[in-house]
């Protein structure tokens, strides 16, 4: 999907509203022109001391323009904002539908969080495309035409001169300036990328750096990156500030130009002095229509960049395209087996020839150091990705040809970072099971021992959990996640480091309730914490994408359960 094209086609769909909105833009500027022209005409005529009754009409015109300009402007703002929101709505839905199939695979694949943190800025940028690009561009074109035609009626020379000035203002200056600034701007993009890279190293590698003893050099390098951007921006200010100077020079040049061109006509009596004053002032005021054109061109450039980035997110490479899915997914039981599964992100091999078996109702522990590929196994099971090689069976049925959503119906995942949406606790639980009653929800919360914390919440289930659920503590969030898994009630559970962000006491407590709640489930527990061994029937250890150790069904769970 090309986002810019989409906006333009949306505009086409709203053509009635677009025309109305543009119509009022034009009326607003026209009223401004009318006000100044009529005022000039009025006082010039008044200097001839005519009877005041003759002037009634022009007095009314001055008053009309004076008042109507503000009213037109008000109406125009209402229409254009309404339109912008309508476009925004379509844009959001369109964008959502476009990214829905490729997420979260794409975000995981390009590990940098950059991909998704930048896009809201980009969507913001697009929503103003009509307001800040199309509308000013249209009114500029309209006023070039209108002024040329109207002035031609008085003098062709004047018409040509004004046309020339306006074309310089609208076409020559903004584009020349941007051409000049363009090369500089290319450097700027590189330098921004450089600073972004530096920041990433600076934040992610903070502890490596602080220990290196060379952080002074490092900081100097960072300041250098900032200075580079600053230098380029300084050079750019030279180009961009020229624009406003040129704009002022050209638009004001219309004053002496139209005066001097019309002067001979007035002196020879072909044109009345009254009209000359009105035309000189009116033409000058019409240049108001071009005030926003520099910004519009700038905005257009930036919008194109945003659109390209968004297209980048929504684009789907051939290997990411979902295959035609034929199978109805109906596994016989909740066993899992991965056979000779290999997988790579881009060029990095993440998994090599993985064989992993989980019998129905078994609890399996998968451990290994960070970066060894444990989570990728979970990603493959919920079908964020397809394995490059090998096959994955659930209940003896391959999931290869099954639709992701239908596979996920059988699996609950409790991860390290539980994502809560910025809404009420109730809504956060209901996504797991929209039909659950409040009683079900409270039952689930009690089962995960959230009941004490629940009693402290100000509004019970209606409590807003805050942005990203940050108003709840880490342990509380994990409990909510487990409650959600309970409500979803699936035969398979994947626990992907659900305890690693918690202190030991909290982790033990939650671990205990999880083993109790998942007694009859098939569980894959991914952790780097070997002390959870007693929770498992089977045990795998991974390192560098390979399973290097496995322990077949053993006494662990048996012995602990007999203990308890």
């Amino acid at each position, binding site marked *: 999907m090309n986002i810019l094209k989409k906006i333009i086609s949306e505009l086409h769909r709203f053509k009635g509203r677009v025309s109305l909105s543009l119509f009022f833009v034009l009326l607003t500027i026209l009223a401004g022109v009318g*006000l100044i022209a009529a*005022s000039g005409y*009025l*006082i010039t*005529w008044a200097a001839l001391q005519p009877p005041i009754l003759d002037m009634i009409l022009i007095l009314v015109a001055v*008053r009309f323009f004076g*008042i109507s*300009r*503000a009213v037109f*402007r*008000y109406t125009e*703002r209402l229409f254009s904002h*309404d339109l912008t929101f309508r476009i925004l*709505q379509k844009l*959001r*839905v369109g964008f*959502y539908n476009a990214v*829905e199939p490729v*997420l979260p695979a794409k975000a995981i694949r390009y*590990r940098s969080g950059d991909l*998704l*943190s930048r896009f809201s800025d980009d*969507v913001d940028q697009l929503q103003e495309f009509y307001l800040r690009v199309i509308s000013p561009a249209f009114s500029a074109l309209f006023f070039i035409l209108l002024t040329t035609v109207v002035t031609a009626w008085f003098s062709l020379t004047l018409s040509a001169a004004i046309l020339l000035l306006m074309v310089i203002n609208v076409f020559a200056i903004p584009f020349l300036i941007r051409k000049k600034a363009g090369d500089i701007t290319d450097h700027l993009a590189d330098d921004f990328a450089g*600073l*972004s890279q530096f*920041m990433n190293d600076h934040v992610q590698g*903070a502890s*490596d750096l*602080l*220990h*290196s*003893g*060379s*952080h002074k050099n490092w*900081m100097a390098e960072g300041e250098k990156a*900032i200075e580079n951007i600053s230098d380029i921006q300084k050079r750019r200010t030279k180009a961009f*500030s020229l624009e406003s100077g040129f704009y*002022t020079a050209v638009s*004001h040049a219309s004053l002496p130009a139209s*005066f*001097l061109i019309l002067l001979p006509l007035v002196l020879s009596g072909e044109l009345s*002095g009254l009209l000359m*004053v009105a035309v000189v002032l009116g033409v000058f005021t019409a240049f108001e229509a071009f005030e926003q054109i520099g910004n519009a061109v700038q905005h257009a450039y930036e919008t194109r960049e945003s659109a390209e980035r968004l297209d980048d997110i929504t684009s789907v490479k051939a290997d990411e395209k979902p295959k035609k899915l034929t199978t109805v997914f109906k596994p016989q039981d909740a066993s899992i087996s991965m056979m000779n599964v290999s997988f790579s992100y881009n060029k990095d091999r993440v998994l090599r020839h993985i064989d992993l078996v989980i019998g129905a109702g078994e609890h399996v522990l998968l451990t290994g*150091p*960070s970066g060894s590929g444990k989570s990728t196994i979970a990603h493959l099971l919920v079908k964020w990705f397809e394995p490059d090689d090998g096959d994955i069976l659930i209940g003896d049925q391959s999931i290869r040809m099954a639709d992701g959503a239908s596979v*996920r119906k059988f*699996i609950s995942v409790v991860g390290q970072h539980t*994502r809560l*949406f*910025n809404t009420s606790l109730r809504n956060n639980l209901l*996504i797991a099971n929209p039909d659950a009653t409040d009683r079900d929800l409270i039952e689930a919360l009690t089962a995960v021992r959230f009941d004490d914390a629940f009693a402290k919440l100000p509004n019970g289930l209606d409590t807003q959990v805050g*942005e990203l659920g940050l108003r709840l503590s*880490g342990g509380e969030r994990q409990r909510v996640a487990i409650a959600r898994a309970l409500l979803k009630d699936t035969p398979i559970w994947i626990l992907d480091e659900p305890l690693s962000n*918690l202190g*030991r006491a909290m*982790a033990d407590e939650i671990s205990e309730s999880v083993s109790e709640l998942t007694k009859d489930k098939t569980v894959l527990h991914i952790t780097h914490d070997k*002390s959870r061994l007693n929770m498992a029937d089977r045990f795998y*250890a991974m*390192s*560098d994408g390979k399973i290097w150790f496995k322990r077949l069904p053993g006494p662990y769970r048996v012995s602990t359960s007999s203990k308890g």
Partner: protein
Amino acid sequence: MKSVHPHKVAEAQSRLFRDALHQRGFILAIFFVSVLSGLVILAQMYSLSILIDAAFLQEWIPNAMQPWILILVAAILVRALLVWIRTWLGMRLAVVLKTEYRKKILRKLHRLGPVRLRQEKTGDLISLQLNGVERLDDFFAQYVPAAIQVATIPVVIFGFVMWVDWPTGLVFLITGPLIPIFMYLIGTKAGDKIHEQWNSLRRMNAHFLDTIQGMDTLKLFGREKYAGRSINNVSRLFRVTTMRVLKIAFLSGMVLELAASVSTAVVAVEVGVRLIEGMMIFQTGMFVLLLAPEFYLPFRTFGAAHHAGMEGAESGAQLFDLLDRKEHSVQANASKKLPSPPFTIELKKVEYSYPLTEEIVLNGVNLQLNPGEIHTLTGASGEGKTTLLHLLSKFIEPDSGSVLVNGRLLENFPPDLWRNQITYVPQFPHLFSKSVAENIKIGDPDAPLFEVAEAARAAHAFDFIQNMPDGFNTMLGENGMNLSGGERQRIALARSFLKQSPILLLDEPAASLNTELEEKIMESLKEFSRGRIIMMVSHRTHSVLASDRLSVIKNGVIVESGEPDRLLPGLKDELIFDPERLQ
């Protein structure tokens, strides 16, 4: 973008303004240029009114008019020049301040240190440094100059009009101040409403962002289609309610426009009537009429810049939120000098609990680290092993108890100097977007290549580095080659061998290695440990057996400490874990 509390935005706005005012040179220059612009506008309109008067009422004498034409053209050129300079000054001011803020962010992140940074998303910080700071541009380049203009140009014009035609001056006097009053109202009552609405627009953006970023959660629960519909509904509802508010909110904007255009009309009518009555001359009337729009123009520019200013202020609020973050207070009695190595470190009754949850992690840890010793720490996950390493690096300070280095309190040493004595090899070291050699040289940027190679050899990284496409010049990091956990650690280990610091902290260095490599690396470490402190977190038999001392941490205290071969048999499987022992 996160939504920010309105009063924080107002606070940020005045703080940004103060920061701008501190750039005296720029502010004075913009002020000066604005006053000059006012004078040039007078000259321009005066000469134009003379010319119109001559063409229309008086006799046109080309020679007499020539100077006036020249003045008009010159005034326009000077005016354009002044606009150019003023714009340039504003943009330049913005660049200077943006650069300053960027450096401040950089230094702040450095001072906050890795433990506090862990709570932040890297993407958010980068986005603040790049886009967030960039959004301040309009505030400094447009809003601040517009504010200076509004305080100068109308004053100059008003003064002059008072002098040549006081009745028109009176109209200006009455309507002029009305505009700031209305603008003040926009800034408060109606403005609050608009602002509130923009905020809810942001919240809606946040909802959209939330939905997209939470796509994995939605899909896991099979709710992705429902969420798509909900975006549509939320957007539609938002439009309907917002338009209802905007209908009222835009009224105040209309009043501002009305004040400007009606005043111009009033001047025209008032001048016209006096002309008919013969109470004034035409040229003066023309002059003040031409000045009327110029008088109101700065107000309108300021009104338009106001919105840009608010957006900048919102970004500023986020910026200041980061810059005001509390950091380590360096002790007042911090000594500049460290004792010289070899070091002996002693932890006495060290207590620490997480600042947010107040959960106790260390509950009176006693531990002694001697030079020449490899000291291994073991314990279950979440027992505070990493917290101990952070304490030793001075990323955090103990709540009570003391850490003594050669008998002196660690808290009195400047953190930067102290960390220079330490190398830390985390479980998953960060690879910088640089070459392999540079990644190793982070510990010692001036080291010659043969030393780098030597260090790599000691860390048993030499062979796999040689096998990389460009050997030691292979690019690593986000845009380069990705390495496995074990390879990363060996690069980081080479880093520390090169740096030769007296203290080495290792977090599970053998976790991704096979037994053979593990043994070899322990040999290297053993050799390296002469006169140094090596503190290591590990769960592997070979590592433990190769160390000189083993300590076990549980429930926030060291429960056992002694020779490894004596302690090892008593430890549970889950603490010391090796394939050999399980099979």
